[in-house]
């Protein structure tokens, strides 16, 4: 079977390469490194020079965008094209050994500089002092697990990663199942639920402040929807966003509102891929709709549910924007881990502690990472 997606190093699946005669190993290696590094460095230099020029001119934004698109598309293409021509100039026995690295190289170089190096560096900084110079042992981690706000943030984040995925996936699954039976109007209904996905967390937070808005007596009338309802019911208006610890739930609602659409769309696609015969067979055998749902639909799409839930857990773990935009997380007790990190990095200017908080986030995600890789390898083995 010839599928190009087999990634075994010695797999024979891919397109036959012309026989490569042995080339001196060192030479090939150097050429590979050169091929990989050349494009990013030239591209970066080009962008930097062009951009510096534009900045000096105090350029208008449209011009900046224009140049960037030109350099980004045409520039990147011509760089790859030029490198390809350069390879053609090499003796034939070198060519096919070097070419793949020109294709993959730029991506790997960027990932190394902007992700792999930073991860290692952040781990190092997490053992250093506030300016990242001298090692202080485990002090920063001791802080992370003793500071009042950090403990609060860990508790709150635990709430986020349990409740948000639970609510979003449940509502999404229920809605996908219901909408599946709607017939006409299904796609409109789904688009409307999905719509908040396109909005930023900042936009969503602004949107929801209008619902939670509160004004104390004699400071104007209450124009928030929730307090409008309270007044309509003859109750006193409530400062919703200051009700500890319930205000955390109110912030989670914003994220659920945004992410349910994602869960719904993915689960809906999975439900639609269940063969009709299975469902019809169960119905003929007298199964009720609820039984069909519990015994057939849910078990069949369980793998998808797991994937979606994992994705949501990761998102909830990293939640920052909502808490940050709504404001006063310390006073209101709505602190979360990712928000603490930015706070210590930018406001309290303690790089060591900020890095330690980031490392805590990272360690929490490592199991997902391993699981992800394992799942990928299993899938590759099946293909």
């Amino acid at each position, binding site marked *: 079977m010839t599928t190009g*997606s087999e990634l075994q*190093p010695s797999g024979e*699946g891919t*397109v036959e390469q012309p026989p490569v005669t042995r080339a001196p190993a060192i030479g090939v290696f150097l050429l590979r490194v050169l091929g990989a590094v050349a494009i990013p460095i030239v591209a*970066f230099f080009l962008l*930097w020079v062009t*951009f510096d020029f534009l900045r000096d001119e105090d350029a208008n*934004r449209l011009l*900046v*965008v224009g140049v960037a698109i030109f350099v*980004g598309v045409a520039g990147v293409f011509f760089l790859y094209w030029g490198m*390809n021509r350069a390879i053609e100039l090499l003796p034939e026995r070198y060519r096919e050994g070097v*070419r793949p690295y020109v*294709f*993959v190289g*730029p*991506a*790997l170089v960027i*990932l190394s*500089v*902007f*992700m792999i*190096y*930073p991860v290692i*560096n952040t781990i190092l*900084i997490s053992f250093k002092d506030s300016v990242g110079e001298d090692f202080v042992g485990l002090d920063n981690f001791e802080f992370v697990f003793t500071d009042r706000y950090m403990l609060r943030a860990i508790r709150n984040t635990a709430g986020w990663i349990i409740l948000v995925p639970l609510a979003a996936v449940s509502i999404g699954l229920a*809605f996908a199942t*219901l909408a599946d*039976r*709607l017939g006409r109007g299904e796609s409109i*209904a789904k688009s409307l639920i999905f719509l*908040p996905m*396109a909005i930023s967390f*900042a*936009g969503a937070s602004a*949107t929801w402040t*209008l619902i939670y*808005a*509160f004004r104390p007596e004699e400071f104007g009338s209450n*124009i928030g929807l929730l307090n409008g309802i309270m007044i309509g019911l003859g109750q006193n208006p409530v400062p919703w966003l200051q009700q500890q610890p319930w205000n955390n739930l109110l912030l989670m609602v914003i994220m659920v509102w945004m992410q349910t659409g994602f869960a719904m769309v*993915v689960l809906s696609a999975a439900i639609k*891929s269940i063969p009709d015969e299975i469902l019809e*067979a*169960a119905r*003929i055998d007298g199964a009720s709709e609820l039984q069909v749902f519990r015994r*057939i639909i*849910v078990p069949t799409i*369980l793998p998808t549910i797991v994937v979606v839930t994992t994705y949501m857990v*990761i998102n909830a773990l990293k939640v920052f*924007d909502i808490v940050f935009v709504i*404001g006063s997380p310390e006073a209101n007790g709505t602190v979360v881990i*990712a928000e603490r990190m*930015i706070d210590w990095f930018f406001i309290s200017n303690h790089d060591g502690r900020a890095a330690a908080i980031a*490392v805590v986030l*990272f360690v929490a*995600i490592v199991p*997902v990472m391993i699981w*992800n*890789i394992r799942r*990928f390898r299993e899938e590759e083995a099946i293909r």
Partner: protein
Amino acid sequence: MSVTTAPPAAEPIPVRGKGLEPRTGGWFVRIAVLVIVVIWMIPTAGVLITSFRPEALVDTTGWWTALAHPFETSQWTLENYRLALDTGGFASAFLNSLAVAIPATVIPIAIAAFAAYAFSWMEFRGRYLMFIAVVGLLVVPLQMALIPILRLYNEGAIVANYYVFPDLDLNGTFLGVWLAHTAFGLPLAIYLLRNYIGSLPSSIIESARIDGADHFTIFWRLIIPLSVPALAAFAIFQFLWVWNDLLVAYVFLGGSRETRVLTLALQGLVGREGENWHLLTAAAFISMALPLLVFFSLQKYFVRGLTAGAVKG
């Protein structure tokens, strides 16, 4: 929850003309769907309505009161939008958002497409391990990269007295943000594109090679045109992600009035304890306008991109 395995599909069931449960539900389904949709629409509707009401009314009555007599023209105005765009600085923030989002979408796609092609159709040492690394990077939190990258931008990196990474003073520049977004978007881009490009039929590529085409020609003439759906799906994804991002822009671009993007400008408004509602809602809608447009016009690709990434097989 009880986990039962799905019953294996038995022999094909003879389809009976009648007696099968109808696939479309009754009133219960319709009403339930309607209720959820209405609840989901309320927040957005509130913003939209408020943004068109004059300041005096916004400040004294709830937005829902406008629905009681919707045709009374005196209660609608465009003034809020004019104010937000001009004095609120949202016009320039809009342009800044464009200046960040478009290059930060295009550059990673170009780089990822080449890499995805190599991972799918080229033979080289270490490609399995390299791709495993990309899969691993998919979930690495952004927060891990912020401090070191900011230092690289401000001070460069020095190993044994030599600049390994020169001090370029990239902080606060668009280029710095583009590079960061490019890097953060690459793992997903490579992963999604490889899934797609790797599943193209190998016979096309083989016959092209027999005709004497080299990898570059195959990639440019064959793979790119065939991959348009996947490229479009990722482009929408990345564009929305960058447009809606607050964290990366906050860290690398900062909140100064000249360079701040829409999300940061919006955050500045929300912070001020509930005043300026008329401005805030108009501004919020300005920030949503483009993503909503992108979303509705390219919805099909967007959904396809989502499901391609998350449900495989």
